[in-house]
């Protein structure tokens, strides 16, 4: 990593080039971060199935049919037969561009010194929208966090919290915990993502490495029901202690009530017709 300040500008150039359609997305030039935007756009939004051969491989998390979210009644719109794959940006190929290659190399080296193979700890590396995401297997999460925090060339000393995402149709990987780490020393960012099945929602706690993640993990437990093993006091934090369920999961209803006024009846937003 020679010049950290140059990377964002180059990254923007790459994004602009990809958007204009004259930049080959699959084979980015060295030193410019990849962007899977174009591929994701085609796979996710233009109702085309992801084609792993031609472009960056996509990570299909759900398949939806129809257009307006309602399956009742006859299909008068003609949109009922629509099939749409929801695909997240898939694993990236080297070079990742910017400082991302260096971070991944250093991490592999540090993990190797500790006796953990990089490929065992990290499922895949995704570079998208100028951001580096490492999908970490849960058993190696604490090791990876410690390596990222302690190595002097990595120094991701600022843990910016944990956030949960629920993909109910991504079988076996329904619950994702997303960790955002910043390096104050090197002005770098990295994101760790851990996917666990709904039946076994256990992730080792990162509080021992980043004490600031204490409340964030409690919040993620509260909202998504991810159990952080080894957390010093995993209690609900936002909801009352006796609250049933984990309210920000996708299968938990919004809980809105219909609004009625002068005979007019407005259903809560989660039961209205939608365009997705």
């Amino acid at each position, binding site marked *: 990593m020679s010049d950290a300040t140059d990377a964002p500008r180059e990254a923007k150039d790459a994004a602009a080039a990809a958007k204009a359609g004259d930049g080959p997305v699959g084979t980015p030039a060295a030193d410019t971060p990849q962007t899977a*935007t174009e591929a994701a756009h085609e796979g996710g939004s233009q109702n085309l199935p992801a084609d792993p051969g031609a472009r960056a491989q996509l990570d299909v998390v759900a398949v939806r049919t129809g257009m307006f979210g309602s399956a009742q009644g006859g299909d008068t719109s003609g949109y009922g037969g629509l099939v749409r794959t929801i695909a997240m940006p898939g694993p990236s190929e080297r070079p990742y561009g910017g400082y991302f290659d260096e971070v991944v190399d250093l991490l592999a080296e540090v993990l190797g010194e500790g006796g953990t193979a990089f490929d065992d700890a990290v499922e895949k590396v995704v570079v998208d929208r100028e*951001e580096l995401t490492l999908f970490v297997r849960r058993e190696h999460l604490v090791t990876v966090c410690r390596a990222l925090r302690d190595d002097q060339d990595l120094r991701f000393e600022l843990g910016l919290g944990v956030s949960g995402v629920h993909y109910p149709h991504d079988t076996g990987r329904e619950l994702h915990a997303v960790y955002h780490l910043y390096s104050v020393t090197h002005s770098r960012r990295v994101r760790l993502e851990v996917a666990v099945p709904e039946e076994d929602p256990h992730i080792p706690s990162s509080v021992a490495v980043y004490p600031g993640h204490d409340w964030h993990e409690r919040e993620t437990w509260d909202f998504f029901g991810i159990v952080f093993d080894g957390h010093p006091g995993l209690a609900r934090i936002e909801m009352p202690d006796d609250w049933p369920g984990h309210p920000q999961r996708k299968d938990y209803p919004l809980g809105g009530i219909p609004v009625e006024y002068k005979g007019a009846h407005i259903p809560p937003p989660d039961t209205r017709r939608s365009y997705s």
Partner: protein
Amino acid sequence: MSSTTSSAHGAQGTPRAAGSIVDDGVEDVPSFEATGGDWSEIAEEAARLGEERIVVNMGPQHPSTHGVLRLMLEIDGETVTEARCGIGYLHTGIEKNMEYRTWSQGPTFCTRMDYLASFFQETAFCLGVERLLGIADDVPERATVIRVLMMELNRISSHLVCLATGGNELGATTIMTTGFTAREEILKIFELVTGLRMNHAYVRPGGVVQDIPPGALDTIREALGTMRGYIRELEDLMLGNPIYKGRTVGVGHLSLAGCMALGITGPVLRSAGLPYDLRKADPYCGYETYDFDVPTSTDADSFSRTVLRIEECYQSMRIVEQALDRLQAIGPGPVMVADKKIAWPAQLAIGSDGMGNSLDHIRTIMGTSMEALIHHFKIVTEGFRVPAGQVFQAVEHPRGVLGAHLVSDGGTRPYRAHFRDPSFNNLQGVSLMCEGGQVADVVVAVAALDPVLGGVDR
């Protein structure tokens, strides 16, 4: 463990004896919990049990906890031996609600998170959406400068409320009235530009909802002078005040190591000596082109945080002045991306019933072009699609690093929107800052952290 102690007291006929929040290490210590009741009775019972240790519940409805924060303090005499926070009393489910609204409606929700610093949530969200869309470079220069202008004014108003309520909590009403009077000057500008005093929803994906009105630049320049006077007054009131100094100097100490471990950012981190400010470290909205300083201190106490906040107000004014000059130089122009598939079609005007779509605009789309009408209807009801993926966009909030984690599934609504609010994270420092101090110092330490519970609970 609590059941044994409580049943033991219950057998002796003690009125309000129940399990307490003590941990396992102190199992043999008799404990009780009093909710309301006569203080002499409570003291008597404590004396009877031969136990000085008392757990006091402060809040959630308490005048000096900055909103609905609940503090559980374990005290020994006047000394706090353990301090814990209870939050969630203002949990609003905003993140869940955002999943059911379009991307354009997002700012309307996230502006209400930290209601004292609305523009920061809006900007973080919109910068994130723009990066997801890949249009970050297409946002007009004028819109970016307006965002910076509004954010910096907002930073001043937020710091003023922090100083004012902090003073009020120490019993200094003049600090409060002066701070709020100064804040009104900024709210007048906000009202002029956005139409609202709070909860603006002014920054939208792709730009800002409308240009600043004619004459606003001069009004802001004029108001800056007034504001400077008020802040100078506040500075005299607070920094030279021996009582204020006596209450705050050396109170609520949190070292740099503690801040870094707990992920505490903002003025609290800077008061410990690290000049970490995202506007410098990881610039967004073109902050690298503005000339300003990041004030720091090494005292790491409540007083130094007050000094830093006042200093940051002056630095924000510097940025505001530069932004005003740039707006003047740029001249009139678009404040929304040119792509009509994304730009919110707002040509607002003040009508008899308040602000709404201008009649000229409605006449144009209704009368002249069927396609324009269809497009207007579609973009308002359905919204625009955002390619699948996720971003984490961080901005420097008055209280620290605000991060917006946005996940899109390629649809018209966020798949997941999560905000890493600085107050939520910073509140974890309360135990470190308060334990070992006096009960009265808890109020000072919390006021210097400046948590806003709307942001904490979301």
